[in-house]
């Protein structure tokens, strides 16, 4: 079932509570009463169509946001993507790291094995950070500069950014998935970790990993399926403009 504007916001959460961090990223807090999705968007001054597209891609991984792509600005999209990055780096990752760390401190005799898990996770964290950094330093500024250029509101550095001959093609080609390592970590804990004790704490770590993986998956999806086409379209427009000149 797709999420549409007339559903009550509360029912949306009953339907899929994993959407909670997603709506938080839009600044929406709990306590929606009987407000519909449309009303909540009005109250928070959000673009309803955009909100629905994001919710639906998250809710249904097979949902393909085809229609109305051009309605969304790169700015709007990138705001959301950056908030998501922030959520990973400031909430999710530290949360998982803490949980593993506490486990290491509490369970002395498995400490060495746990340390191996921790090393793996730290490695993963570093990879994620550099993935995110390269997006925020190269890809997003490029998309934003393009958009400002097309709307005639160029910033000082925009010409410089645009003169670098970057193209979204490059991003599309080597935008790697950051989830496979996470998948491995999950599988190791589920299948191979030799410690039956402290199961409930492993459960909560696993739970966090599942959530993070799922969120990253969706995030990558949005980058590939919404951001890339929007930027491609702008590149075309700019090329046509400069052809005319």
């Amino acid at each position, binding site marked *: 079932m797709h999420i549409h504007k007339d559903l009550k916001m509360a029912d949306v959460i009953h339907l899929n509570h994993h959407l909670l961090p997603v709506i938080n990223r839009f600044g929406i807090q709990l306590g929606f009463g009987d407000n519909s999705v449309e009303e909540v968007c009005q109250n928070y001054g959000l673009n309803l169509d955009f909100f629905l597209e994001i919710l639906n891609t998250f809710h249904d991984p097979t949902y393909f946001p085809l229609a109305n792509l051009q309605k969304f600005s790169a700015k709007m999209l990138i705001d959301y993507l950056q908030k998501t990055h922030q959520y990973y780096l400031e909430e999710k990752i530290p949360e998982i790291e803490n949980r593993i760390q506490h486990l290491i401190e509490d369970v002395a005799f498995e400490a060495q094995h746990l340390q191996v898990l921790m090393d793996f996770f730290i490695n993963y964290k570093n990879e994620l950070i550099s993935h995110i950094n390269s997006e925020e330093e190269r890809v997003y500024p490029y998309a934003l500069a393009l958009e400002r250029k097309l709307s005639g509101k160029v910033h000082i550095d925009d010409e410089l950014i645009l003169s670098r001959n970057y193209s979204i093609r490059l991003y599309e080609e080597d935008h790697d998935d950051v989830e496979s390592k996470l998948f491995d970590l999950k599988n*190791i804990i589920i299948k*191979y970790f030799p410690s039956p004790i402290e199961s409930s704490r492993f459960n909560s770590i696993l739970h966090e990993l599942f959530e993070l993986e799922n969120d990253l998956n969706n995030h990558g999806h949005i980058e590939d399926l919404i951001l890339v086409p929007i930027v491609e379209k702008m590149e075309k427009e700019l090329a046509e403009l400069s052809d005319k000149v």
Partner: protein
Amino acid sequence: MKQLRILLISDSFILREGVKTLLSLLERPYKMEECESPTFNFNRLLTKLKPNVVIAKPDMLLPYTVLPRKNDENGQIYYVGLTDDHTPTKLKSRYDFLLPIGEDKTTLLQLLESMLSSTGYLNEKPESNTLSERELTILKYIALGNTNNEIAERLFISTHTVMTHRKNITRKLGIKTVSGLTVYAILNKLIKVEELQVIKQENK
């Protein structure tokens, strides 16, 4: 084992969805194409999909007096008829198997599984996932940071063979990355943490 390829023919939406649900409950891999039109071009679909099993509402295949028995790859095609109390016996006789759609879920599943098994196209349940001696050795080398070439040289086998082993290891363990394999190797005492640290230092 050949891949199970199913052609599903029925003008009834509910019936098609029902068959698809049953198939997914079998939890075996298959490829499927479906067709709802009574005036479809059966032969074209046969060439395109090369099905080895055709599941159909019997009246759908009425216009075809002869049902092709071989697909383009020269494999046998089996026909499963979705029958009910009103299906004429004459029609039923054209089918290799009959699936009476009025049956309950358990019966339907058993029937479908046993008929698909007897075609020989249904993949067996996955093989055991324990690693062989050879795979364990190779896993150890991978975990210690050796490249495919290095492993091939040490074990006097081709790089290609190493890669095949690697694929099998990854499939059996469900671990894709090298660092994941390393953690596995440590947890299973194939290598020691200290060995890794030695390597890390050497690399520096």
